[in-house]
Protein backbone atom coordinates (compact mmCIF):
# COMPACT_ATOMS: atom_id res chain seq x y z
CA UNK A 1 0.00 0.00 0.00
CA UNK A 2 1.25 3.49 -0.79
CA UNK A 3 1.77 5.79 2.13
CA UNK A 4 -0.48 8.80 2.64
CA UNK A 5 2.32 10.93 4.04
CA UNK A 6 6.04 10.38 3.54
CA UNK A 7 8.45 12.80 5.17
CA UNK A 8 12.20 12.56 4.82
CA UNK A 9 14.56 14.92 6.58
CA UNK A 10 11.83 17.46 7.21
CA UNK A 11 13.50 20.63 8.50
CA UNK A 12 12.08 24.01 9.34
CA UNK A 13 14.16 26.83 10.72
CA UNK A 14 12.60 29.91 12.23
CA UNK A 15 14.75 32.94 12.86
CA UNK A 16 16.08 31.84 16.21
CA UNK A 17 15.19 28.19 16.51
CA UNK A 18 14.90 24.89 14.72
CA UNK A 19 11.25 23.82 14.79
CA UNK A 20 11.79 20.65 12.76
CA UNK A 21 15.17 18.99 12.77
CA UNK A 22 15.29 16.39 10.03
CA UNK A 23 12.10 14.59 11.01
CA UNK A 24 11.32 11.49 8.97
CA UNK A 25 8.16 9.41 9.17
CA UNK A 26 5.58 7.61 7.12
CA UNK A 27 1.84 7.36 7.59
CA UNK A 28 -0.11 4.61 5.86
CA UNK A 29 -3.76 4.63 4.79
CA UNK A 30 -6.48 3.61 7.23
CA UNK A 31 -4.47 4.59 10.30
CA UNK A 32 -5.22 6.87 13.21
CA UNK A 33 -1.92 8.39 14.19
CA UNK A 34 -1.28 10.38 17.32
CA UNK A 35 1.54 12.92 17.06
CA UNK A 36 2.44 13.68 20.65
CA UNK A 37 5.04 16.07 21.97
CA UNK A 38 5.68 18.74 24.55
CA UNK A 39 4.94 22.39 23.83
CA UNK A 40 7.25 23.76 21.19
CA UNK A 41 8.42 20.34 19.99
CA UNK A 42 7.38 21.04 16.40
CA UNK A 43 3.98 19.32 16.22
CA UNK A 44 2.11 22.22 14.71
CA UNK A 45 4.98 23.04 12.36
CA UNK A 46 4.92 19.47 11.07
CA UNK A 47 1.18 19.67 10.48
CA UNK A 48 1.57 23.04 8.76
CA UNK A 49 4.21 21.60 6.47
CA UNK A 50 1.88 18.73 5.54
CA UNK A 51 -0.89 21.24 4.83
CA UNK A 52 1.35 23.45 2.71
CA UNK A 53 0.98 26.39 5.06
CA UNK A 54 4.67 26.87 5.55
CA UNK A 55 7.94 26.51 3.72
CA UNK A 56 10.39 23.79 4.75
CA UNK A 57 13.49 21.91 3.68
CA UNK A 58 13.60 18.21 3.05
CA UNK A 59 11.23 15.98 1.20
CA UNK A 60 7.52 15.71 1.87
CA UNK A 61 4.97 13.79 -0.13
CA UNK A 62 1.28 13.98 0.78
CA UNK A 63 -1.04 11.80 -1.35
CA UNK A 64 1.50 12.01 -4.14
CA UNK A 65 1.57 15.81 -4.11
CA UNK A 66 4.07 18.40 -2.93
CA UNK A 67 2.17 20.59 -0.46
CA UNK A 68 4.31 23.59 -1.32
CA UNK A 69 3.41 23.51 -4.99
CA UNK A 70 0.02 21.87 -5.24
CA UNK A 71 -1.78 23.06 -2.15
CA UNK A 72 -5.06 23.92 -3.85
CA UNK A 73 -5.36 20.46 -5.34
CA UNK A 74 -4.17 18.79 -2.16
CA UNK A 75 -6.84 20.43 -0.06
CA UNK A 76 -9.54 18.58 -1.99
CA UNK A 77 -8.24 15.40 -0.34
CA UNK A 78 -7.13 16.79 3.00
CA UNK A 79 -9.25 18.33 5.72
CA UNK A 80 -8.18 19.89 8.93
CA UNK A 81 -9.48 21.26 12.15
CA UNK A 82 -6.95 23.49 13.81
CA UNK A 83 -7.87 24.14 17.37
CA UNK A 84 -11.37 25.27 18.30
CA UNK A 85 -12.77 28.63 17.33
CA UNK A 86 -11.10 29.21 13.99
CA UNK A 87 -14.47 29.57 12.32
CA UNK A 88 -15.02 33.27 11.58
CA UNK A 89 -17.31 34.84 14.13
CA UNK A 90 -19.56 36.59 11.64
CA UNK A 91 -20.41 33.42 9.73
CA UNK A 92 -23.93 31.99 9.96
CA UNK A 93 -24.39 28.24 10.29
CA UNK A 94 -26.43 28.17 7.10
CA UNK A 95 -23.89 30.27 5.18
CA UNK A 96 -21.01 28.08 6.35
CA UNK A 97 -22.74 25.00 4.92
CA UNK A 98 -23.68 26.85 1.73
CA UNK A 99 -20.17 28.09 1.22
CA UNK A 100 -18.42 24.76 1.70
CA UNK A 101 -21.09 22.99 -0.36
CA UNK A 102 -20.42 25.32 -3.28
CA UNK A 103 -16.66 25.47 -3.11
CA UNK A 104 -15.67 21.94 -2.12
CA UNK A 105 -16.13 19.31 -4.83
CA UNK A 106 -16.23 16.39 -2.37
CA UNK A 107 -18.76 17.82 0.07
CA UNK A 108 -21.97 15.90 0.73
CA UNK A 109 -24.67 18.30 1.80
CA UNK A 110 -27.23 15.70 2.88
CA UNK A 111 -24.67 14.17 5.19
CA UNK A 112 -23.90 17.54 6.73
CA UNK A 113 -27.56 18.34 7.28
CA UNK A 114 -27.98 14.96 8.99
CA UNK A 115 -25.06 15.68 11.31
CA UNK A 116 -26.38 19.13 12.14
CA UNK A 117 -29.86 17.75 12.83
CA UNK A 118 -28.35 15.84 15.74
CA UNK A 119 -27.15 19.06 17.35
CA UNK A 120 -28.88 22.14 18.71
CA UNK A 121 -27.39 24.35 16.00
CA UNK A 122 -29.86 26.63 14.20
CA UNK A 123 -29.27 27.72 10.57
CA UNK A 124 -29.61 31.42 11.39
CA UNK A 125 -27.18 31.38 14.32
CA UNK A 126 -23.88 33.15 13.91
CA UNK A 127 -20.67 31.54 15.12
CA UNK A 128 -20.21 34.28 17.73
CA UNK A 129 -23.45 33.18 19.37
CA UNK A 130 -22.28 29.59 19.73
CA UNK A 131 -20.43 28.00 22.62
CA UNK A 132 -17.01 26.52 21.96
CA UNK A 133 -18.50 23.04 21.98
CA UNK A 134 -21.14 23.99 19.43
CA UNK A 135 -18.52 25.60 17.16
CA UNK A 136 -16.65 22.33 17.15
CA UNK A 137 -19.85 20.46 16.38
CA UNK A 138 -20.35 22.71 13.37
CA UNK A 139 -16.76 22.41 12.21
CA UNK A 140 -16.84 18.64 12.65
CA UNK A 141 -20.13 18.37 10.72
CA UNK A 142 -18.57 20.31 7.84
CA UNK A 143 -15.38 18.27 7.82
CA UNK A 144 -17.02 14.87 8.19
CA UNK A 145 -19.24 15.59 5.19
CA UNK A 146 -16.17 15.92 3.01
CA UNK A 147 -15.00 12.68 1.49
CA UNK A 148 -11.30 13.32 2.10
CA UNK A 149 -8.44 10.86 2.40
CA UNK A 150 -6.56 12.58 5.19
CA UNK A 151 -7.97 14.40 8.20
CA UNK A 152 -5.62 16.48 10.30
CA UNK A 153 -6.62 17.51 13.80
CA UNK A 154 -4.50 19.97 15.75
CA UNK A 155 -5.64 20.07 19.38
CA UNK A 156 -9.24 19.71 18.21
CA UNK A 157 -10.77 19.51 21.67
CA UNK A 158 -8.78 22.18 23.47
CA UNK A 159 -10.94 23.99 25.99
CA UNK A 160 -13.99 21.76 25.56
CA UNK A 161 -15.80 20.09 28.44
CA UNK A 162 -15.58 16.34 28.80
CA UNK A 163 -19.00 15.69 27.23
CA UNK A 164 -18.03 17.42 24.01
CA UNK A 165 -14.57 15.81 24.03
CA UNK A 166 -15.93 12.28 24.33
CA UNK A 167 -18.61 12.98 21.76
CA UNK A 168 -16.04 14.42 19.36
CA UNK A 169 -13.89 11.30 19.14
CA UNK A 170 -16.84 8.96 19.29
CA UNK A 171 -18.51 10.66 16.34
CA UNK A 172 -15.25 10.54 14.41
CA UNK A 173 -14.87 6.82 14.98
CA UNK A 174 -18.47 5.83 14.40
CA UNK A 175 -19.50 8.07 11.54
CA UNK A 176 -16.34 9.01 9.73
CA UNK A 177 -13.37 6.74 10.02
CA UNK A 178 -12.95 3.74 7.70
CA UNK A 179 -10.05 1.91 6.10
CA UNK A 180 -9.96 4.43 3.25
CA UNK A 181 -9.31 7.33 5.58
CA UNK A 182 -6.39 8.43 7.65
CA UNK A 183 -6.46 10.65 10.70
CA UNK A 184 -3.46 12.47 12.11
CA UNK A 185 -4.11 14.06 15.49
CA UNK A 186 -2.08 16.06 17.98
CA UNK A 187 -3.32 16.64 21.49
CA UNK A 188 -2.14 17.06 25.04
CA UNK A 189 -5.04 15.02 26.36
CA UNK A 190 -3.27 11.78 25.52
CA UNK A 191 -5.39 9.50 27.67
CA UNK A 192 -8.51 10.47 25.71
CA UNK A 193 -7.25 9.26 22.37
CA UNK A 194 -5.18 6.35 23.64
CA UNK A 195 -7.84 3.75 22.87
CA UNK A 196 -8.59 4.99 19.35
CA UNK A 197 -5.04 5.29 18.02
CA UNK A 198 -3.52 2.69 15.73
CA UNK A 199 -0.11 4.37 15.64
CA UNK A 200 1.87 6.63 17.88
CA UNK A 201 4.63 9.15 17.19
CA UNK A 202 6.53 11.11 19.80
CA UNK A 203 8.22 14.29 18.68
CA UNK A 204 10.85 16.13 20.68
CA UNK A 205 12.98 19.09 19.64
CA UNK A 206 11.91 18.69 16.05
CA UNK A 207 12.85 15.01 15.83
CA UNK A 208 10.64 11.93 15.81
CA UNK A 209 11.84 10.01 18.87
CA UNK A 210 9.30 7.21 18.80
CA UNK A 211 7.31 5.86 15.87
CA UNK A 212 5.40 2.68 16.45
CA UNK A 213 2.02 1.03 16.02
CA UNK A 214 0.03 0.32 19.12
CA UNK A 215 0.42 -3.48 18.91
CA UNK A 216 4.19 -3.43 18.91
CA UNK A 217 4.10 -0.74 21.56
CA UNK A 218 2.62 -3.32 23.94
CA UNK A 219 5.33 -5.80 23.01
CA UNK A 220 8.17 -3.37 23.30
CA UNK A 221 7.36 -1.43 26.44
CA UNK A 222 6.33 -2.93 29.74
CA UNK A 223 5.60 -1.57 33.14
CA UNK A 224 6.42 -3.65 36.18
CA UNK A 225 5.28 -3.20 39.74
CA UNK A 226 8.24 -4.23 41.85
CA UNK A 227 8.49 -4.68 45.63
CA UNK A 228 11.31 -2.97 47.52
CA UNK A 229 13.35 -6.22 47.83
CA UNK A 230 13.67 -6.66 44.05
CA UNK A 231 14.08 -2.99 43.20
CA UNK A 232 17.84 -3.12 42.80
CA UNK A 233 17.59 -6.16 40.51
CA UNK A 234 15.12 -4.21 38.42
CA UNK A 235 17.43 -1.23 38.24
CA UNK A 236 20.13 -3.43 36.74
CA UNK A 237 17.94 -4.02 33.70
CA UNK A 238 18.23 -0.29 32.91
CA UNK A 239 14.64 0.87 33.18
CA UNK A 240 13.57 4.00 31.29
CA UNK A 241 11.88 5.35 34.33
CA UNK A 242 11.12 4.62 37.94
CA UNK A 243 8.45 6.03 40.23
CA UNK A 244 7.23 5.20 43.70
CA UNK A 245 3.69 4.22 44.60
CA UNK A 246 2.68 3.00 48.10
CA UNK A 247 6.15 1.78 49.00
CA UNK A 248 6.52 -0.12 45.75
CA UNK A 249 8.38 0.95 42.61
CA UNK A 250 6.97 1.06 39.13
CA UNK A 251 9.62 0.51 36.46
CA UNK A 252 9.22 1.18 32.77
CA UNK A 253 11.27 -1.04 30.45
CA UNK A 254 12.05 -0.81 26.78
CA UNK A 255 12.75 -4.09 24.99
CA UNK A 256 13.32 -6.35 27.97
CA UNK A 257 12.00 -9.88 27.57
CA UNK A 258 8.72 -10.56 29.24
CA UNK A 259 9.66 -13.75 31.20
CA UNK A 260 12.58 -11.87 32.72
CA UNK A 261 10.27 -9.08 33.88
CA UNK A 262 7.60 -11.42 35.19
CA UNK A 263 10.10 -12.67 37.78
CA UNK A 264 10.26 -9.15 39.19
CA UNK A 265 6.57 -8.56 39.65
CA UNK A 266 3.28 -7.82 37.94
CA UNK A 267 3.81 -6.79 34.29
CA UNK A 268 1.38 -4.58 32.40
CA UNK A 269 1.22 -2.36 29.36
CA UNK A 270 2.21 1.23 30.17
CA UNK A 271 -0.18 4.04 29.43
CA UNK A 272 0.85 6.48 26.70
CA UNK A 273 0.90 9.20 29.31
CA UNK A 274 3.48 7.42 31.48
CA UNK A 275 5.53 6.49 28.45
CA UNK A 276 5.41 10.08 27.29
CA UNK A 277 6.56 11.45 30.62
CA UNK A 278 9.44 8.94 30.74
CA UNK A 279 10.52 9.70 27.18
CA UNK A 280 10.37 13.45 27.53
CA UNK A 281 12.24 13.64 30.85
CA UNK A 282 14.29 16.79 31.06
CA UNK A 283 12.63 18.53 28.12
CA UNK A 284 12.04 21.77 29.99
CA UNK A 285 15.13 21.58 32.18
Amino acid at each position, binding site marked *: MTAVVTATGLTKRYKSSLALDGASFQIGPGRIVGLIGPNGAGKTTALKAI*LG*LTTFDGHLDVLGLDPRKERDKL*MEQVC*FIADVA*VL*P*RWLKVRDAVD*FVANTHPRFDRAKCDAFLARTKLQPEQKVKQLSKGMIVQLHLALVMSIDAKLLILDEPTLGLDILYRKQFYQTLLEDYFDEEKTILVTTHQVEEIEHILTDLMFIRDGKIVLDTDMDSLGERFSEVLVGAELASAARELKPLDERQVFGKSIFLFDNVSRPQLEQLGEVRRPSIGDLFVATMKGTYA
Partner: protein
Amino acid sequence: MKTFYWLVKREFWETKGGFFWAPIVTGIVFLVLNGMALIVGEVFGRRGGDHWQGFRIGGQGLHADLAPDQVAQIGAGIDIMFYAVASIILCVTAIVVFFYALGSLYDDRRDRSILFWKSLPISDTSTVLSKLASALFVAPAIAVVVGVLVALGMAVIIAIAAALHGVGLWALLMASHPIRVVLNLILLIPLYALWALPTVGWLMLCSAWARSKPFLWAVVLPIAAGVLVSWFDMLGVPGLSSGWFWPNVVLRLFGGLMPGSWLMLGEPSSLAGLDHHDPAALLDGMNLAFHYSTLANPTLWIGVIAGVAMVAGAIWFRRWRDDS
Protein backbone atom coordinates in the same frame (compact mmCIF):
# COMPACT_ATOMS: atom_id res chain seq x y z
CA MET B 1 -16.33 30.77 -11.77
CA LYS B 2 -18.81 29.34 -9.30
CA THR B 3 -16.15 29.37 -6.63
CA PHE B 4 -15.38 32.99 -7.39
CA TYR B 5 -19.04 33.90 -7.12
CA TRP B 6 -19.22 32.29 -3.70
CA LEU B 7 -16.01 33.97 -2.61
CA VAL B 8 -17.47 37.37 -3.48
CA LYS B 9 -20.67 36.38 -1.71
CA ARG B 10 -18.63 35.50 1.35
CA GLU B 11 -17.09 38.97 1.30
CA PHE B 12 -20.56 40.43 1.12
CA TRP B 13 -21.72 38.38 4.12
CA GLU B 14 -18.77 39.59 6.10
CA THR B 15 -19.09 43.26 5.14
CA LYS B 16 -22.82 43.67 4.77
CA GLY B 17 -22.70 46.33 7.48
CA GLY B 18 -20.21 48.48 5.55
CA PHE B 19 -21.10 47.76 1.94
CA PHE B 20 -24.85 47.73 2.31
CA TRP B 21 -26.10 49.32 5.51
CA ALA B 22 -23.62 52.18 5.78
CA PRO B 23 -24.75 53.82 2.49
CA ILE B 24 -28.40 53.21 3.32
CA VAL B 25 -28.12 54.69 6.79
CA THR B 26 -26.16 57.66 5.44
CA GLY B 27 -28.85 58.14 2.81
CA ILE B 28 -31.64 58.08 5.36
CA VAL B 29 -29.80 60.54 7.63
CA PHE B 30 -29.18 62.76 4.61
CA LEU B 31 -32.86 62.76 3.65
CA VAL B 32 -34.02 63.45 7.20
CA LEU B 33 -31.59 66.35 7.62
CA ASN B 34 -32.59 67.87 4.29
CA GLY B 35 -36.26 67.44 5.10
CA MET B 36 -35.67 69.23 8.38
CA ALA B 37 -33.72 72.00 6.66
CA LEU B 38 -36.52 72.47 4.15
CA ILE B 39 -39.08 72.81 6.92
CA VAL B 40 -36.86 75.39 8.62
CA GLY B 41 -36.63 77.24 5.31
CA GLU B 42 -40.41 77.17 4.88
CA VAL B 43 -41.03 78.46 8.38
CA PHE B 44 -38.50 81.30 8.14
CA GLY B 45 -39.55 82.05 4.57
CA ARG B 46 -43.13 82.60 5.66
CA ARG B 47 -42.07 84.79 8.58
CA GLY B 48 -39.79 86.80 6.34
CA GLY B 49 -42.70 87.81 4.14
CA ASP B 50 -41.73 89.47 0.85
CA HIS B 51 -38.05 88.55 0.91
CA TRP B 52 -38.89 84.97 -0.04
CA GLN B 53 -37.45 84.43 -3.44
CA GLY B 54 -38.81 80.95 -4.01
CA PHE B 55 -36.88 77.92 -5.09
CA ARG B 56 -34.16 78.12 -7.63
CA ILE B 57 -33.02 75.03 -9.45
CA GLY B 58 -30.40 75.12 -12.13
CA GLY B 59 -30.22 78.87 -11.88
CA GLN B 60 -33.91 79.17 -12.75
CA GLY B 61 -36.52 80.51 -10.38
CA LEU B 62 -39.60 78.35 -10.25
CA HIS B 63 -42.73 79.99 -11.56
CA ALA B 64 -45.76 79.07 -13.54
CA ASP B 65 -44.70 79.68 -17.14
CA LEU B 66 -41.27 78.38 -18.04
CA ALA B 67 -39.86 78.40 -21.50
CA PRO B 68 -38.71 74.97 -22.81
CA ASP B 69 -35.02 75.86 -22.49
CA GLN B 70 -35.60 76.88 -18.88
CA VAL B 71 -37.27 73.53 -18.25
CA ALA B 72 -34.21 71.84 -19.72
CA GLN B 73 -31.94 73.81 -17.39
CA ILE B 74 -34.04 72.80 -14.41
CA GLY B 75 -33.89 69.17 -15.54
CA ALA B 76 -30.11 69.43 -15.79
CA GLY B 77 -30.02 71.03 -12.35
CA ILE B 78 -31.93 68.06 -10.93
CA ASP B 79 -29.52 65.69 -12.71
CA ILE B 80 -26.61 67.46 -11.06
CA MET B 81 -28.39 67.05 -7.75
CA PHE B 82 -28.60 63.31 -8.49
CA TYR B 83 -24.87 63.18 -9.13
CA ALA B 84 -24.10 65.23 -6.04
CA VAL B 85 -26.20 63.04 -3.75
CA ALA B 86 -24.77 59.87 -5.26
CA SER B 87 -21.27 61.29 -4.73
CA ILE B 88 -21.95 61.74 -1.02
CA ILE B 89 -22.97 58.09 -0.76
CA LEU B 90 -19.95 57.08 -2.86
CA CYS B 91 -17.67 59.00 -0.48
CA VAL B 92 -19.06 57.03 2.45
CA THR B 93 -18.47 53.81 0.55
CA ALA B 94 -14.95 54.98 -0.32
CA ILE B 95 -14.16 55.26 3.39
CA VAL B 96 -15.73 51.85 4.04
CA VAL B 97 -13.72 50.31 1.20
CA PHE B 98 -10.51 51.90 2.50
CA PHE B 99 -10.86 50.10 5.82
CA TYR B 100 -12.23 46.99 4.18
CA ALA B 101 -9.13 46.66 1.98
CA LEU B 102 -6.89 47.34 4.93
CA GLY B 103 -8.49 44.53 6.93
CA SER B 104 -9.21 42.16 4.07
CA LEU B 105 -6.07 40.04 4.36
CA TYR B 106 -5.24 40.89 7.97
CA ASP B 107 -8.35 40.35 10.09
CA ASP B 108 -8.61 36.65 9.40
CA ARG B 109 -4.95 36.20 10.23
CA ARG B 110 -5.48 37.98 13.51
CA ASP B 111 -8.51 35.91 14.57
CA ARG B 112 -6.96 32.78 12.98
CA SER B 113 -10.03 32.06 10.85
CA ILE B 114 -7.56 32.01 7.95
CA LEU B 115 -6.91 28.44 9.05
CA PHE B 116 -10.49 27.59 8.20
CA TRP B 117 -10.46 29.35 4.83
CA LYS B 118 -7.15 27.72 4.00
CA SER B 119 -8.57 24.29 4.77
CA LEU B 120 -10.71 24.59 1.64
CA PRO B 121 -9.46 23.83 -1.87
CA ILE B 122 -9.41 27.47 -2.95
CA SER B 123 -6.33 29.14 -4.35
CA ASP B 124 -4.96 32.21 -2.65
CA THR B 125 -5.13 34.00 -5.99
CA SER B 126 -8.91 33.56 -6.16
CA THR B 127 -9.26 34.64 -2.56
CA VAL B 128 -7.31 37.86 -3.06
CA LEU B 129 -8.96 38.63 -6.40
CA SER B 130 -12.43 38.12 -4.90
CA LYS B 131 -11.61 40.69 -2.25
CA LEU B 132 -10.26 43.05 -4.89
CA ALA B 133 -13.43 42.67 -6.96
CA SER B 134 -15.56 43.34 -3.90
CA ALA B 135 -13.68 46.54 -3.19
CA LEU B 136 -13.57 47.85 -6.77
CA PHE B 137 -16.88 46.69 -8.22
CA VAL B 138 -19.38 45.34 -5.70
CA ALA B 139 -19.14 48.16 -3.16
CA PRO B 140 -19.28 51.03 -5.72
CA ALA B 141 -22.18 49.37 -7.56
CA ILE B 142 -24.20 49.14 -4.34
CA ALA B 143 -23.32 52.76 -3.55
CA VAL B 144 -24.47 53.95 -6.99
CA VAL B 145 -27.84 52.24 -6.66
CA VAL B 146 -28.37 53.46 -3.10
CA GLY B 147 -27.14 56.93 -4.05
CA VAL B 148 -29.64 57.31 -6.88
CA LEU B 149 -32.46 55.99 -4.69
CA VAL B 150 -31.58 58.59 -2.07
CA ALA B 151 -31.46 61.26 -4.78
CA LEU B 152 -34.94 60.22 -5.92
CA GLY B 153 -36.09 60.52 -2.31
CA MET B 154 -34.57 63.97 -2.25
CA ALA B 155 -36.42 64.88 -5.45
CA VAL B 156 -39.70 63.75 -3.89
CA ILE B 157 -39.07 65.95 -0.84
CA ILE B 158 -38.35 68.94 -3.05
CA ALA B 159 -41.40 68.22 -5.18
CA ILE B 160 -43.62 68.16 -2.11
CA ALA B 161 -42.16 71.46 -0.92
CA ALA B 162 -42.63 72.97 -4.39
CA ALA B 163 -46.20 71.77 -4.49
CA LEU B 164 -46.82 73.78 -1.32
CA HIS B 165 -45.97 76.86 -3.34
CA GLY B 166 -48.27 75.90 -6.11
CA VAL B 167 -45.44 74.92 -8.40
CA GLY B 168 -46.00 71.62 -10.17
CA LEU B 169 -42.53 70.18 -9.91
CA TRP B 170 -43.59 66.74 -11.07
CA ALA B 171 -43.60 67.97 -14.62
CA LEU B 172 -40.12 69.38 -14.09
CA LEU B 173 -38.85 66.13 -12.57
CA MET B 174 -39.85 64.57 -15.84
CA ALA B 175 -37.24 66.79 -17.45
CA SER B 176 -34.53 65.11 -15.38
CA HIS B 177 -32.89 61.81 -16.34
CA PRO B 178 -32.39 59.54 -13.31
CA ILE B 179 -31.93 56.46 -15.48
CA ARG B 180 -29.25 58.15 -17.54
CA VAL B 181 -27.56 59.19 -14.29
CA VAL B 182 -27.54 55.61 -13.00
CA LEU B 183 -26.27 54.34 -16.32
CA ASN B 184 -23.50 56.93 -16.45
CA LEU B 185 -22.44 56.19 -12.89
CA ILE B 186 -22.44 52.44 -13.52
CA LEU B 187 -20.39 52.96 -16.67
CA LEU B 188 -17.92 55.04 -14.68
CA ILE B 189 -17.22 52.16 -12.27
CA PRO B 190 -14.62 50.53 -14.59
CA LEU B 191 -12.72 53.82 -14.76
CA TYR B 192 -13.06 54.18 -11.00
CA ALA B 193 -11.69 50.67 -10.56
CA LEU B 194 -8.67 51.37 -12.76
CA TRP B 195 -8.01 54.64 -10.99
CA ALA B 196 -8.40 53.20 -7.48
CA LEU B 197 -6.40 50.03 -8.23
CA PRO B 198 -3.07 51.34 -6.88
CA THR B 199 -4.76 52.48 -3.67
CA VAL B 200 -6.61 49.22 -3.07
CA GLY B 201 -3.54 47.25 -4.15
CA TRP B 202 -1.38 49.13 -1.68
CA LEU B 203 -3.87 48.69 1.16
CA MET B 204 -4.22 44.97 0.44
CA LEU B 205 -0.47 44.55 0.22
CA CYS B 206 -0.08 46.12 3.66
CA SER B 207 -2.97 44.00 4.88
CA ALA B 208 -1.33 40.79 3.69
CA TRP B 209 2.14 41.74 4.81
CA ALA B 210 1.83 43.54 8.18
CA ARG B 211 2.26 41.42 11.29
CA SER B 212 0.29 44.03 13.18
CA LYS B 213 -1.28 47.46 12.71
CA PRO B 214 -1.68 47.50 8.90
CA PHE B 215 -3.26 50.96 9.13
CA LEU B 216 -0.07 52.49 10.48
CA TRP B 217 2.09 50.91 7.80
CA ALA B 218 -0.28 51.82 4.99
CA VAL B 219 -0.48 55.46 6.01
CA VAL B 220 2.82 56.16 7.72
CA LEU B 221 5.11 54.67 5.07
CA PRO B 222 3.97 56.87 2.17
CA ILE B 223 3.78 59.98 4.34
CA ALA B 224 7.23 59.36 5.77
CA ALA B 225 8.54 58.87 2.24
CA GLY B 226 6.85 62.11 1.17
CA VAL B 227 8.35 64.01 4.08
CA LEU B 228 11.79 62.65 3.24
CA VAL B 229 11.45 63.66 -0.39
CA SER B 230 10.30 67.14 0.62
CA TRP B 231 13.23 67.42 2.98
CA PHE B 232 15.79 66.44 0.35
CA ASP B 233 14.01 68.74 -2.06
CA MET B 234 14.43 71.64 0.35
CA LEU B 235 18.09 70.77 0.74
CA GLY B 236 18.34 71.11 -3.00
CA VAL B 237 19.14 67.52 -3.92
CA PRO B 238 18.66 67.37 -7.70
CA GLY B 239 16.27 64.93 -9.37
CA LEU B 240 13.69 65.06 -6.60
CA SER B 241 10.47 66.99 -6.76
CA SER B 242 8.18 66.95 -3.77
CA GLY B 243 5.61 68.81 -5.87
CA TRP B 244 5.46 65.73 -8.06
CA PHE B 245 5.88 63.12 -5.36
CA TRP B 246 3.00 64.07 -3.06
CA PRO B 247 0.11 64.01 -5.55
CA ASN B 248 1.49 61.24 -7.77
CA VAL B 249 2.72 58.78 -5.15
CA VAL B 250 1.46 59.59 -1.68
CA LEU B 251 -2.06 60.62 -2.66
CA ARG B 252 -2.44 57.87 -5.25
CA LEU B 253 -1.50 55.31 -2.60
CA PHE B 254 -4.34 56.20 -0.32
CA GLY B 255 -6.54 58.79 -1.96
CA GLY B 256 -7.51 56.96 -5.14
CA LEU B 257 -10.80 55.77 -3.68
CA MET B 258 -12.30 59.26 -3.58
CA PRO B 259 -14.91 59.25 -6.36
CA GLY B 260 -13.90 61.38 -9.32
CA SER B 261 -10.44 62.09 -7.98
CA TRP B 262 -9.04 61.49 -11.48
CA LEU B 263 -10.45 64.93 -12.30
CA MET B 264 -7.61 66.48 -10.32
CA LEU B 265 -5.21 65.22 -12.96
CA GLY B 266 -3.47 67.64 -15.21
CA GLU B 267 -2.26 71.17 -14.74
CA PRO B 268 -4.53 73.10 -14.69
CA SER B 269 -7.12 70.54 -13.60
CA SER B 270 -9.36 69.35 -16.42
CA LEU B 271 -12.32 70.83 -14.55
CA ALA B 272 -11.14 74.35 -15.29
CA GLY B 273 -12.52 74.59 -18.82
CA LEU B 274 -16.12 73.98 -17.80
CA ASP B 275 -18.84 76.61 -17.51
CA HIS B 276 -20.20 76.40 -13.99
CA HIS B 277 -23.12 78.75 -14.62
CA ASP B 278 -24.84 76.75 -17.29
CA PRO B 279 -26.02 73.41 -15.81
CA ALA B 280 -26.94 71.81 -19.07
CA ALA B 281 -23.61 72.70 -20.65
CA LEU B 282 -21.78 71.57 -17.50
CA LEU B 283 -23.49 68.19 -17.66
CA ASP B 284 -22.75 67.92 -21.35
CA GLY B 285 -19.13 68.80 -20.71
CA MET B 286 -18.82 66.10 -18.05
CA ASN B 287 -20.13 63.24 -20.14
CA LEU B 288 -18.58 59.78 -20.21
CA ALA B 289 -16.16 60.71 -22.98
CA PHE B 290 -14.85 63.53 -20.80
CA HIS B 291 -14.21 61.16 -17.89
CA TYR B 292 -12.79 58.41 -20.05
CA SER B 293 -10.34 60.83 -21.65
CA THR B 294 -8.36 60.09 -18.44
CA LEU B 295 -7.43 56.81 -20.14
CA ALA B 296 -5.17 58.82 -22.43
CA ASN B 297 -3.13 59.94 -19.44
CA PRO B 298 -0.09 57.73 -18.74
CA THR B 299 -0.38 58.56 -15.02
CA LEU B 300 -3.44 56.33 -14.86
CA TRP B 301 -1.68 53.42 -16.50
CA ILE B 302 1.45 53.71 -14.39
CA GLY B 303 -0.87 53.49 -11.39
CA VAL B 304 -2.57 50.43 -12.85
CA ILE B 305 0.78 48.70 -13.38
CA ALA B 306 1.85 49.53 -9.82
CA GLY B 307 -1.53 48.31 -8.58
CA VAL B 308 -1.23 45.00 -10.39
CA ALA B 309 2.25 44.50 -8.95
CA MET B 310 1.04 45.24 -5.42
CA VAL B 311 -1.91 42.85 -5.79
CA ALA B 312 0.53 40.18 -6.97
CA GLY B 313 2.60 40.92 -3.86
CA ALA B 314 -0.51 40.58 -1.71
CA ILE B 315 -1.22 37.17 -3.26
CA TRP B 316 2.33 36.05 -2.57
CA PHE B 317 2.17 37.13 1.08
CA ARG B 318 -1.26 35.53 1.43
CA ARG B 319 0.22 32.26 0.27
CA TRP B 320 3.38 32.27 2.36
CA ARG B 321 2.90 34.53 5.37
CA ASP B 322 3.14 32.04 8.23
CA ASP B 323 2.11 33.49 11.54
CA SER B 324 -1.16 31.97 12.62
